[in-house]
C-alpha cells in the first residue's frame, strides 16, 4: 500500500526532477572523488587563484538568499503584514541556499576534515571568521523560522504557539547576523584590495554587498513565486509580488548613488571608460542589473504583471550574480599572467549541488504548506472546475 502510494507519487512528479536528481548524483560522486585525491587534480586552483568558481557561486547564492532577512525585517520588525505570505518560500529558499553554500565550502576547504576548527579557534579580526560564524548561527535561525511549515501538520503542532511567541526577537537576531555576514563577505575583499581592480575595490565593499543583497533577495522571492506558479500552480498573489517590486527601485537607486559617489570621491570616474573589459563588465552590471530593472519596477503596470516582474527580477539577480563573479574572479589581477578557468570537475560539483538545491526546494514546496496564500486551491483540488475558477480569480 505504502509502496504503491510512493510509486504513484514518483510517477506524478514533474519530469525535470528526475534530471535534477541525476545531475546531483553525478556532481556529488565527483565531489567524493575530490575529497579523496585533493584539489590539485580536480581543480584549476593555483597560488595565483587560490579561490575559484566555488567561492563566486557561494557569494552569489548568499546574496540571493538575502531575501530571507530582508523580508523578515519588513514583515516582523517594520510590520508590513501584507507581505507575510512571502516569508515562507523565502525562508525555505534561504535555508537551502545556505545549506548549498556550506556543502560547497566543505568541498572547497583543503582541510575539510577539521572544518570545526572555525568554531574552536576564532580569529576575531578575520572577516571570514565573521562570515562563517554568522552563516552557521543564521542557518539555525532560518530553521527556527521555517519550523512552523514543517510542524504545522504533524503531531508536534502543539509547539507552534511557543515558537510563534519568540519569533520577533529571533527574527531581530537573524537580521543582525545577516547584515553582518552579507557585509563581511564584502569586507573579505578589502584586505585583498591590491589584487582587485579599482572599479570594484573599495572600503565600502561591505555596504555595497549588503545593499545589493536586499535587491537580489527580494528579486529571488518574486522570481521564485512566479516560477512555482507555473510549475506547481502554487504562488503568491500578484498584489504581494507588486508590493515587493515597489521596494526595488529605491534599493537599486540607493546602490547607484553609493556606487557613483564612491567612484567620484575616489576620483576613479575615468576608469569607467578606460579599463577595457573591466569597464564593459562594470557597465553590464549597471545597465542590466540596475538601470533597466529600476525603470521597469518604477511602473505600476510592470509591478502588477507576472511576466514583467519576473523579467525584472531576473535582471536584478543576473546583475548581482555578475557583481559577485566580478569581485571574486573576473576583476582579480592575475599574478604573473596566470589566468583561471575552472576545471570541469569544479563545474560538475557545482552543478550537482545546485541541482540538489532545486530538487529539495521543489519537493518541500510540493509537500509542505510553503505557499500559504494559495493553499486554499489545493484543498479544493478534488473539484477541477473550481480549481480553474480559483486560478482565474488569482490573477
Amino acid at each position, binding site marked *: 500500500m505504502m509502496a504503491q502510494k510512493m510509486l504513484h507519487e514518483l510517477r506524478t512528479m514533474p519530469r525535470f526532477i528526475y534530471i535534477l536528481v541525476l545531475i546531483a548524483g553525478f556532481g556529488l560522486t565527483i565531489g567524493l572523488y575530490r575529497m*579523496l*585525491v*585533493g*584539489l*590539485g*587534480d580536480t581543480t584549476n*586552483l*593555483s*597560488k*595565483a587563484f*587560490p*579561490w575559484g568558481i566555488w567561492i563566486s557561486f557561494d557569494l552569489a547564492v548568499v546574496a540571493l538568499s538575502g531575501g530571507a532577512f530582508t523580508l523578515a*525585517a519588513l514583515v*516582523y*520588525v*517594520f*510590520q508590513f503584514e501584507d507581505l507575510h505570505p512571502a516569508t515562507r518560500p523565502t525562508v525555505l529558499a534561504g535555508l537551502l541556499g545556505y545549506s548549498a553554500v556550506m556543502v560547497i565550502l566543505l568541498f*572547497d*576547504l*583543503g*582541510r*575539510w*576534515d*577539521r*572544518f570545526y*576548527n*572555525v568554531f*574552536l*579557534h*576564532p*580569529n*576575531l*579580526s*578575520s*572577516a*571570514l*571568521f*565573521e562570515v*562563517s560564524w554568522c552563516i552557521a548561527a543564521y542557518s539555525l535561525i532560518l530553521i527556527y523560522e521555517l519550523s512552523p511549515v514543517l510542524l504545522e501538520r504533524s503531531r508536534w503542532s502543539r509547539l507552534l504557539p511557543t515558537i510563534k511567541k519568540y519569533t*520577533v526577537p529571533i527574527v*531581530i*537576531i537573524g*537580521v*543582525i547576523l545577516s*547584515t*553582518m555576514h552579507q557585509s*563581511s563577505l564584502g*569586507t*573579505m575583499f*578589502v*584586505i*585583498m*584590495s*591590491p*589584487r582587485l581592480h579599482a572599479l570594484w575595490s573599495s*572600503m565600502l565593499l*561591505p555596504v555595497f554587498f549588503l545593499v545589493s543583497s536586499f535587491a537580489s533577495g527580494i528579486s529571488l522571492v518574486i522570481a521564485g513565486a512566479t516560477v512555482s506558479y507555473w510549475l506547481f500552480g502554487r504562488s503568491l498573489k500578484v498584489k504581494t509580488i507588486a508590493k515587493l517590486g515597489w521596494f526595488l527601485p529605491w534599493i537599486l537607486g540607493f546602490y547607484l548613488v553609493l556606487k557613483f559617489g564612491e567612484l567620484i570621491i575616489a576620483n576613479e570616474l575615468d576608469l569607467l571608460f578606460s579599463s577595457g573589459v573591466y569597464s564593459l563588465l562594470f557597465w553590464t552590471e549597471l545597465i542590466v542589473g540596475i538601470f533597466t530593472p529600476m525603470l521597469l519596477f518604477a511602473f505600476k503596470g510592470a509591478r502588477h504583471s507576472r511576466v514583467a516582474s519576473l523579467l525584472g527580477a531576473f535582471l536584478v539577480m543576473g546583475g548581482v550574480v555578475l557583481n559577485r563573479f566580478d569581485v571574486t574572479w573576473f576583476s582579480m589581477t592575475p*599574478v*604573473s599572467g596566470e589566468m583561471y578557468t575552472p576545471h570541469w570537475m569544479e563545474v560538475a560539483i557545482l552543478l550537482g549541488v545546485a541541482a540538489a538545491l532545486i530538487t529539495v526546494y521543489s519537493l518541500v514546496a510540493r509537500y509542505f504548506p510553503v505557499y500559504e496564500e494559495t493553499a486554499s486551491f489545493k484543498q479544493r483540488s478534488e473539484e477541477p472546475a473550481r480549481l480553474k475558477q480559483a486560478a482565474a480569480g488569482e490573477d
Partner: protein
Amino acid sequence: VAEHSKSPRYGFLIDASLCIDCRTCMVACSVENKVSMETTRIWIEETGITGSFPNLKRYTVPYHCMHCKDPSCVSACTVGALRRNDDGIVTYEQDICIGCRYCIYACPFEVPNYEWDEPLPLVVKCDMCAVRLGEGQQPACASTCPTGAIRFGKYEDMLEEAHRLINERPDKYVQHVYGEEENGGTATLYISPVPFEELGFPTVGATSTAYSNRLITEGTPMVAGAMLVGMTGIYLTIKHFRDEAARERREAEQEKAAAGVKEES
C-alpha cells in the same frame, strides 16, 4: 585598531646583486623544513634576460615570507593558525589550519604556498627556521648561501646595513630598501641593482591591508549593538502605534454600538 606592534627582533637582508641563481637556499630550506621542492618556502624571482647581445643581463633574487610588522595573513586567517610571535616571526600552526586559503589571497607579497597535490594539504611558508634560531643557529637559507646574498641578524642591524650599502654605492643600487615601508614595514629587506618591479616584486602600499581590514571587522560589534537597539526600538514603536490605532477603532465601534442601543431604547 592601529597595531602598535613591536619592531621585529630578527631580519633578513637580501641583496639581488649577489644572487647567482644556484638555488642552494631552496635545497637547504627543503631539507631543513621537510617540504617538497615543488612547494618550497623560498624560491627565485628574476628579471628574465634583458639588454641586447652581447650585453645581456639577468638578475635573480631569493624570495620568501616578508614577516610583516602588521601581517595581512594573520589578520585574514579564519582560525588564527597564522600568528606573529614576540620576535616578529610570522608562524603557521599547521594543526589548526582548515585550508580556506584566505591567507594566500590576503598576502600582498604573494608569499604563502599550498600543497595542491596533497589529499589533505597545508600552507607552506617561511618561519625563519624557528627551531634553528632556538639552537642559536642562522636560518638554513642564510647559512648556506655561498655568496652572502641572504644575510640574517638583528633587524636594526640589517636595516642600517641596507642603507649603508645603497648610500655607499648609489651607482650600483636602486635607492630603495624594499620592505622598509611596504605593507607597514617587514622584517625581510631587499636591495637591488634593478627596480624591484623588474624582479617581479609586487608594488605594495605603505599601509598594511590588515589595517583597513581591522577598521571594518573591529567596528562590527558596535554596528551589531546599534542594530539590536534600533530594530527593537522600531518594532516597539510601530507596535505601539498599531495597538493604539486598533484600540481607538475598537472604542469608536463600542461607542457607536452603545449609541445604537440608546436609540433603540
